[in-house]
Each structure stands twice: as C-alpha cells, then as structure tokens.
C-alpha cells in the first residue's frame, strides 16, 4: 500500500518560510563577499600611511583617488610619489598574491577532496625552491639577469605539477593518487634543495632562506602586470568550473553520474591553479598559510558553494596577506618583517581559534 505523495504549495504560490530564509542566506553571502573589497580598501589606506614620510589617512586616499578621479581629488607631489611609487606597489602585490593563493587553494582542496591540499602539500613550492637553489648555487637556469631566479622558480613549479599530473594520469588521476604523487615530489625536491644548501656558501644560504620566507617588496608595477594577467586568466578558468568543483566534492562516481568528467576537470583545474601559484611564488618566494587557510576561513563564513567560495577565498587571501604585511611593517618599524613568516605567526592562532569555536564540522 504505497503511501501517496503529498503535495504542498504550488508553483505560483507564495514563498514558504524556509524559501524566504534560503533567499536571505544567499543575500547575506553576497553581502559578505562585497564587504571584503571594502575591507581591502580600508587596509590599503592604513597601510599607505605607514613609512618614514608622515602621511595622514586622508593624504593616502587622496593620492590614490587622484589618479583615478583627478577632478575630484587633489594631492601633493610628495604624497603621490610616496603612495604610488613606494607603498602602493607593495600593497598591490600583497592583494594580488593573496588573491591568487586563496582562490587556487580553494580549487585544489575541491579537486583533491582534501582539506590539507595546498600548493605546499602538493610540492609545487618545493619545486620552485629547487629551481631557485639551482639558480643561486650553480647559477644554472633558463634565463639570465633578474629572470634567472624568477624563471627557474616558475619553470620548476610548473614542472613539479606537470610531473604530478603525468604520474597520476597513468593511474587515472584520482585525488588520492595525486596527493601521494604531490607528497613524493615534495620530498624529492626538498631533498635536492637540502643538498644544494649543504654545498652552498654562507651568502648563498642566506639568499635561499630569505627566498623561502617570502617578500612582497622586491618588485614593482612592471612585474606585477605579468602576474595580474596570469591571475586573471587562471581565476577565469577556475570560476568557470565552479559548478564542477561543487559536484566533485561529493566523489568521482557521483560527479560522473551528474555529467562531470572528473579526471578531465581535475587536470584543467590543477593546471590553472599551478599557473597561478607558480606565477606568484616565482616573484614573492614562498608565502605559506594563505593557500591552505584562506579557503577554510572563507568556507566557514560563506559555505561550500564554489560560485561564492572561490571569489571569497581569493578576496580573503588578499585581506589576510595585506593585513599581515601591514602588521609586519609596523611591529618593529623601521625593520620590515618578511611577510611569509608574519602570515603564519598571526594567522595560525586566529585559525585555531576559529576551529575551536565553531560547533559544526566543516570538513
């Protein structure tokens, strides 16, 4: 005696309370995402006042906005130079790098269905490190001059992710195999870098360890443009795959039954993320933590729908990196702490607090 299916509500009828609640939650998500650029704008203003020349927050904002709306905002020559030539490049690097690391971390966690996935657990940054050691110690690389280190870091990072993809594709590019291959790469490139350290001079060793701590102040607008283009392309690809990422988090077989060719999507997303990460790490050195934790924080706030999560992870990555750099420049000014270590030192306690505080399971 089959129970008859109960029908409640009609297509044209009023929205039920739970539907209202659902719409409200979507609205809140969008609002939260829109808050992040505002936050970035605020920290930018604060950060632009820091330094040897005394600028007020108003000076800083006027200088920034003068170049965008020259009729409405006025600035002095000194403020303009200070802000646009000295401080804003660094700030823009922080936002850009944070965005790229955040968004690619979120995508990698989805395709690997693993909360621990990040550029670091996958060995991509070890690959970059190895390339840098090669450049510093043996002066060996693909390009000369300032591009020696950058080129090596980029190419070896991409090589590492290419190896992971290649090895994994032999066995069908499942998430488990990719993670294991990534860990293997991490060890092998790590070991090779250690060998170089053993044979390096003190100066070379110092240079290598600085690179490993991450720095935002080394490059200007010119190089930033290159990275921005990479990030725009990579982010576009990732955002286009947001739906597939949602579906892939529930498993390959279910994804396939919902029309998503999971191995192919995994390869595309892995390539796009690696391109982003390699592009950033090549210029800034290793900046840990953001690719792992930015997405987790975003997921706690926004939920696991990648159409919202990807932009939120990127923007939050920008907020965290810019915030950490601002703090790193203030604590023991005029000494500037390297941003890679500041993000971890400040971010980890906050992250642990979030994990302990939340009642619900998040992964």
């Amino acid at each position: 005696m089959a129970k008859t299916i109960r029908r409640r509500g009609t297509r044209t009828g009023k929205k039920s309370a739970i539907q209202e609640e659902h719409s409200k939650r979507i609205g809140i998500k969008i609002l939260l995402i829109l808050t992040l650029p505002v936050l970035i704008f605020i920290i930018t203003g604060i950060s632009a006042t820091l330094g040897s020349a005394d600028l007020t927050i108003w000076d800083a904002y006027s200088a920034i906005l003068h170049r965008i709306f020259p009729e409405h905002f006025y600035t002095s020559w000194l403020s303009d130079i200070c802000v646009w030539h000295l401080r804003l490049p660094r700030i823009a690097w922080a936002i850009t790098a944070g965005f790229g690391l955040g968004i690619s971390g979120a995508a990698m966690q989805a395709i690997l269905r693993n909360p621990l996935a990040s550029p670091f657990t996958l060995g991509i940054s070890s690959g970059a490190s190895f390339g840098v050691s090669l450049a510093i110690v043996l002066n060996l690389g693909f390009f000369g001059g300032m591009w020696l280190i950058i080129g090596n870091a980029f190419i070896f990072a991409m090589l590492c992710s290419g190896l992971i993809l290649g090895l994994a594709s032999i066995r069908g590019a499942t998430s488990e195999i990719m993670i294991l291959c990534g860990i293997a790469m991490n060890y092998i490139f790590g070991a090779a870098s250690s060998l170089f350290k053993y044979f390096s001079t003190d100066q070379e060793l110092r240079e290598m360890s600085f690179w490993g701590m991450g720095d935002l102040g080394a490059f200007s607008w010119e190089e930033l443009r290159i990275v921005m283009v990479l990030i725009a392309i990579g982010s576009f690809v990732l955002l286009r795959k947001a739906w597939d990422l949602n579906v892939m988090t529930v498993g390959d077989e279910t994804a396939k039954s919902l029309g998503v060719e999971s191995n192919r999507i995994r390869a595309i997303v892995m390539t796009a993320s690696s391109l982003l990460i390699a592009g950033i790490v090549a210029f800034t050195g290793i900046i840990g933590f953001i690719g792992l934790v930015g997405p987790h924080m975003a997921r706690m706030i926004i939920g696991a729908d990648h159409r919202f999560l990807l932009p939120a992870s990127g923007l939050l990555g920008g907020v965290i990196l810019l915030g950490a750099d601002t703090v790193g420049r203030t604590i023991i000014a005029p000494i500037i702490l390297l941003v890679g270590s500041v993000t971890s030192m400040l971010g980890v306690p906050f992250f642990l607090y979030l994990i302990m505080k939340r009642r619900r399971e998040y992964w």
Partner: protein
Amino acid sequence: MVMIKLETIDIVFSYDGNSGPMILDDVSIQLAPSRILGIVGPNGSGKSTLLKCIDKIIQPDHGSVLLDRREIMKMGRMEIAKKIGYVQQTISRGFPTSVFDTVLMGRRPHLSWRSDEDDDEKIWEVLRLLDIEDLALKYFGELSGGQQQKVLIARALAQEAEVILLDEPTSNLDILRQFEVMDIIRDLVNKKLVSAIIAIHDLNLASRYSDKIIMMRRGKIVSAGEPSYVLTADNIASVYGVEAIIRKQSEAPYIIPVGPIKTTMRQ
C-alpha cells in the same frame, strides 16, 4: 511488442581487461517503462558494477547499453546525465553542503554557470514532493540515514532523469525507513513515469516492490522474471547456499531464510 526503456546487451566487464576475473559475464537485461527492476545476488555478484556500466561510470569491455534504443556508450556524459540518475550506495563525505545545494547539484547537466529562479523552483518542488522541504537548509551530514537517502533520490529527480539507478537504497535503514524509501520509489515510478533499477540485498523488499527481478551470481544472470518465478527455494539454495521457505503473501513471494546449506555444492 513489449516496450523497452533501457536494455543491456551482452555486457562484459573485468578489471584488468581480458586477463582478470570476469565481474560481469554476458549480462543482458531489459527494463520496461515505468517499472521497477530489482537486481539481487550475493556480495560480489556484480550488481553494483552493472549499475555503473549502465551509467557509463565505468566502461564495459564489451556489449552495449541502449536507452530508448540509443547507444549510451556513444553519448556524452552530460547527455547521459540528463536521462539517467544514479543514487550511490556509499555516501562519500565531502565538504559540508546544505541539503538544498546537494539537490541543486542534480541541475548540473542542465546548467552552464548560474542557476535561475526556475532551477530553484524545481528544487523546491522536488523537496516538497519527497516531504523534505523542512530539511533544505540543514547540512547533509547532519541528517539521518533515511533522510540522506531521500535527499539523494531528490537529487536524481532534480536531474529530471527518466531512469533512476539505485544501489542498495535501504541498507543501513531501520525497517520503517526501508518501507518509506521503497514507497517513494514505487510512487515515483507509478506517477512520475520514471523507471528504476534497484540493486538490493533484502529479498523480501525486492519481492514486494519489483515488477521484475534478475538474480545474479558471479557476474552471470541465473534467473530473470517475475518475483514469484525468480525467488524460489531452489534458486536461493543454489545462488546463496541458504535453505529458505517461500510463503505466498499477496502475490509476492515471502522468503524465510532457515539457515546455510551444509553441503559440498557450495563454495
């Protein structure tokens, strides 16, 4: 002529190509429109593998699957996903997702990037149909086994699938929830004109809800037909190695397992 919604012809599958042991060996089945086909058989008899082959989640070594007489193996994945829904047995845990978003995944084959009001409305309709609208904003992981199973069926409905494949939909459910879930499937088949193939361990549920049953053993079909034809004491003895008493109860046979048969016939 008998109408056929979906059929498989001589499906052969083994994990290591031709060298490995046969998981499916010349399996041919036919599913009529708006009918439930039950697949029974001991563990490892190839029930789940057959469902995966039908949905092209795994590619059979040989044989074909026809949906409305069209070869599935030649169709793209998105196209298949618009026609066939697959409700998996093991629920793999991903990142926490709300019930609404889980069901929304079923719209994936019909969407490019954004979902619109119509998609949302379809989800609400499906949730209402299965009487789980109240759960929409809960996390999937917070639900009980029966509720989770309903959500997964809802996802297949959101897919607007014409054929739904269910792998052990009642395992891990208490007896009341088993009936609830099977009733839902029966109702959907009766009213929504979907067809269902259900791999199921419980012979009595299979008997009660299936229009036709196939019984499998080691990748081969041993018996196929009406429940009363397939679920006989002899078949159960030879396929499961279990002695059973069969009672006739309102058309469907009712199976009372007595105990394992202790002969050398069985392995």
